[in-house]
């Protein structure tokens, strides 16, 4: 188990290096460099050249790459041209907002999606199953941002029960109970928008998993042992059906971190997705670049997380 995790971590390392090289070259393809935004036309060319040399901008790419990586490890991700602040500061504000949004969404997805999937598979072809399956078809056909707009209109404007923009009410003391409640209040609509559409995959996957597991020989053997229906489903069918879902947890979470872009935009929610859209439209490439690096990093992390979870829940993986 530990060996598996360690080895899995080891594989992650070259992936990260490859990712960073890719992002680095992407960055050097972008117009301008670290000085472009700072330069005053009145400064003489020799002085600029001196600055360039001091910053190592004329060094070969691998030296520059090394400096870039070293700087990142020291927490220096460069400056945002648009905000005129270090990139890390700009992202830092938004990061936690998106993490909360994703976490909320993923919790709702599993809290609603897993029971729906299990019920749907367990009572296949019943009225309940038909309703659930119908819902998943609808969910597949509806784009998240359209659904988000509908919820926004109904609950935000028509009934006015939830706030329609921002991540927290104005004038609240950070850390106070009111502040936290306001945060949660701001999260409810966007996270349900994401989750109610996002859970259809989980429901369908689980439904077919349960139906498939019901036919398995080991389920027949369990029935021949006299295992009662409830225990049969809990110990033999659900456990086996849920494995792929558990294994997908990492990807799901990462998918949400990156995939909430449009919902953040719909709800004017100040998260990383909104920042990413903003940085592209303002040509703030130093921010966009770091965000790409960050999303890539998350994807690798998600895959790692999924593999580790899978190795915990499935003994067949543990051994190999």
């Amino acid at each position, binding site marked *: 188990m530990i060996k598996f995790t360690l080895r899995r971590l080891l594989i992650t390392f070259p992936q990260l290096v490859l990712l960073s090289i890719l992002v680095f070259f992407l960055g050097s393809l972008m117009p301008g460099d670290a000085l472009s935004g700072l330069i005053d036309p009145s400064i003489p060319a020799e002085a600029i050249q001196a600055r360039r040399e001091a910053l190592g901008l004329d060094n070969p790419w691998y030296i520059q790459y090394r400096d870039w990586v070293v700087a990142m490890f020291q927490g220096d991700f460069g400056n945002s041209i648009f905000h005129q602040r270090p990139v890390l500061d700009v992202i830092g504000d938004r990061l936690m907002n998106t993490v909360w949004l994703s976490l909320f969404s993923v919790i709702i997805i599993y809290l609603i999606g897993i029971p729906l999937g299990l019920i749907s598979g367990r009572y296949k072809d019943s009225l309940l199953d038909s309703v659930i399956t119908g819902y998943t078809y609808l969910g597949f056909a509806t784009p998240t941002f359209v659904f988000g707009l509908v919820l926004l209109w109904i609950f935000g404007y028509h009934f006015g029960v939830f706030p329609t923009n921002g991540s927290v009410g104005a004038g609240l003391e950070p850390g106070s109970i009111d502040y936290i409640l306001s945060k949660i209040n701001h999260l409810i609509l966007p996270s349900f928008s994401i989750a109610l559409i996002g859970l259809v995959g989980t429901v369908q996957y689980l439904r077919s998993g349960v139906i498939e597991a019901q036919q398995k020989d080991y389920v027949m053997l369990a029935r021949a042992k*006299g295992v*009662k229906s409830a225990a049969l489903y809990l110990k033999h069918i659900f456990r086996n059906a849920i494995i792929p879902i558990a294994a997908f947890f990492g990807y799901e979470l990462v998918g949400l971190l990156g995939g909430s872009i449009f919902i953040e935009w719909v709800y004017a929610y100040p998260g990383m997705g909104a920042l990413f859209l903003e940085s592209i439209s303002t040509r703030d490439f130093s921010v966009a670049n770091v965000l790409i690096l960050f999303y890539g990093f998350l994807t690798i992390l998600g895959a790692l997380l999924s593999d580790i979870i899978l190795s915990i829940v499935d003994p067949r993986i543990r051994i190999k």
Partner: protein
Amino acid sequence: MSEYLLEANNLTTSFKIDGEYYPAVDDVSIRIRENEVLALVGESGSGKSATAFSLMGLHRHARVSGEVLFQGKDILKNNERQMNRIRGGDIAMIFQDPMTALNPLMKIKHQIQETLKIHGTVRKSGRELYTIELLEKVGIPRPERVAENYPHELSGGMRQRVVIAIAIANRPKLLIADEPTTALDVTIQAQILDLIRELQDDLGSGVLLITHDLGVVAEMADRVAVMYAGQIVEVAPVRELFKNPKHPYTRSLLNSLPSEEQLGSKLHVIQGVVPALNKMDREGCRFAPRIPWIPEEAHEHQPKLREVEPGHLVRCTCYQDFYLDTSMGHGEMEKRVEALQMEEGGVGR
């Protein structure tokens, strides 16, 4: 109390195909005494496995009728709770494919202890030890270690031993073995058959052995019931069946096996194919279409299973006129029969 451990009378199990029910087990009656091995023989599609699953009440979407008297009581009338008490308790089952019969996510010991717990055979404190004893009993080396293993860590032969350990855990009175060695190598098969025989001796249970392998039948069975197209066509003590087979299907089957005596000659081929469940002609002798050289008058209109010698039952009168067709061989005739069936769309299941 009846002299039989199990007595199934007129058992009929129908499955739904395209909205209609068709009997896969059609008016089957079998009896098993204590300490007796009854072999149920037939090819795929004959209904032998469906019979076994019906006895245990394991079919979910089938229509089952008739009666199944176990120790004198009709268990078909049982509700699910009463049935669960019998399943794995007094009636246990061994499955065909050990590679898929065990839950991949549960340790071996937990899969055994589950059945001990349900049937309350041993107290909680004794379960751990009893599990090891069971594994030992089915010939598993280093049982303490195997108990902690997951199924995928064991070979096919070992897994089948675990499946058997689960089956005998509660000292069943009736053991239903559904093709218990079909998926195994012959040397492993020999060991597993030995084991089943040994355990049966030890427990004094009745065994219903379902198999298509006539060699296994000859070695294991006391009595044999041959199934074709959902019906039992012949029942006889094992020696009698092999020495003096009567029904055309039994005789054809025995002749289609490669054997020492037949070396260098063509094997006997049964013409045509087993009819599909929903395309079967349920009037008259079901084997008649496959022995077209026997005149129609030789068959009965409503073939009955009749005792022709003590303990030897045969369905339909056609056995009296039956001879193995060697002249026509298999060539032309067979082609013609198959072409006919193709056109009727009667093939394929």
